[in-house]
């Protein structure tokens, strides 16, 4: 176990928590040597819609880390103050959820405070405002990055526990664990990988839609190749989501079995 985590740590060190934005051609380059024709075909299709990719470290936190960066970068670029106010209200709702579930406040308050600080800093016009460059720097700084990842883990766990009846059948489909065990062993510890249950819960809790584009070897029976995606749309009526109209996710993640990166549409 310890050796396994040592190897993982060593491999992970080669990539920063959050990489630089790279043209999508760098994705194709990865599969040039002996890559499956299905994958190369799919990357070609992707390149019609997407311009760039930003890689994240494969340390088990990649979904949360990708979400963190993509969300904060979106706010930084859009300066959407209404979105910030909306998400802040949902964060306070998450805080109340954890309180009601009996989590001692002092075990999670620092993580909430640090996220709200990051959220504040990407809106311009205050003394604490930061640039895109600084956002990248902070996302690579463990003392900021891991705290924000942990904040999302708290939010995700709280949402799953709050709506345990809804999540239970999906959790049973993944493992034989109870909701409680699942949260304790697969959500709350750092480095535990995320599945559709985590994504659904986080998207619902914060009211932020997320698009996940799947890049795998699957193809249709007739041999034609297309790239699937799934939009995680926050349930209407839960928290302050933007209403029930069809939402266009501003966060797009690329999923390859076992890993998430950030995609940038053209």
């Amino acid at each position: 176990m310890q050796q396994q985590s040592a190897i993982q740590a060593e491999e992970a060190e080669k990539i920063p928590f959050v990489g630089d934005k790279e043209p999508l051609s760098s994705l194709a380059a990865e599969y040039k040597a002996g890559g499956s024709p299905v994958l190369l075909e799919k990357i070609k299709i992707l390149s019609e819609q997407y311009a760039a990719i930003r890689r994240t470290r494969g340390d088990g936190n990649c979904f949360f880390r990708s979400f963190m960066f993509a969300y904060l970068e979106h706010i930084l670029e859009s300066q959407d103050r209404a979105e910030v106010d909306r998400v802040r209200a949902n964060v306070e709702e998450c805080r109340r959820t954890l309180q009601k579930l009996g989590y001692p406040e002092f075990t999670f308050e620092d993580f909430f405070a640090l996220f709200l600080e990051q959220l504040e800093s990407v809106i311009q016009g205050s003394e604490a405002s930061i640039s895109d460059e600084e956002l990248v720097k902070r996302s690579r700084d463990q003392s900021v990055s891991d705290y924000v990842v942990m904040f999302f883990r708290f939010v995700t766990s709280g949402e799953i526990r709050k709506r345990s009846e809804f999540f239970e059948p999906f959790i049973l489909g993944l493992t034989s664990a109870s909701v409680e065990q699942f949260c304790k062993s697969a959500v709350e510890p750092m480095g535990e990988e995320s599945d559709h249950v985590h994504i659904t819960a986080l998207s619902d809790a914060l009211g932020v839609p997320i698009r996940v584009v799947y890049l795998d070897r699957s193809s249709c029976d007739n041999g034609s190749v297309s790239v699937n995606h799934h939009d995680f749309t926050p349930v209407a009526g839960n928290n302050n989501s933007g209403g029930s109209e069809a939402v266009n996710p501003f966060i797009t993640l690329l999923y390859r079995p076992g890993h998430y990166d950030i995609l940038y549409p053209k």
Partner: protein
Amino acid sequence: MSTPARKRLMRDFKRLQQDPPAGISGAPYDNNIMLWNAVIFGPDDTPWDGGTFKLTLQFTEDYPNKPPTVRFISRMFHPNIYADGSICLDILQNQWSPIYDVAAILTSIQSLLCDPNPNSPANSEAARLFSENKREYNRKVREIVEQSWTAD
């Protein structure tokens, strides 16, 4: 200097003082908030009953994102406790999460005493006796309990 780890440990300490769980106690060593001494009392009506087992908890500046290093100072005989006193417990390794504070860590170790996990033995002799010869296992545990009164 007050770092996030130190501030958090002050709150852990406050909680442990205000709302101490039954059968455990702990406090920072002298003026060093990063190093704690703790005592776990053997749970009543178990072979561990009456034992007072001493531990140390060493924290780093990564706390609470990383768990402390926890070790028994008292000699132990338990399937999941190594000869050097270090403990094989999931929440102190890969299942760690910042939701655990010092009180929760000590409570988990306390329940590990009576509820060992024979699948990951740190002391194979203890693990073997636990599953094959409970009488002899309990006798060894009583020995350890008695030793815990005299050792310093």
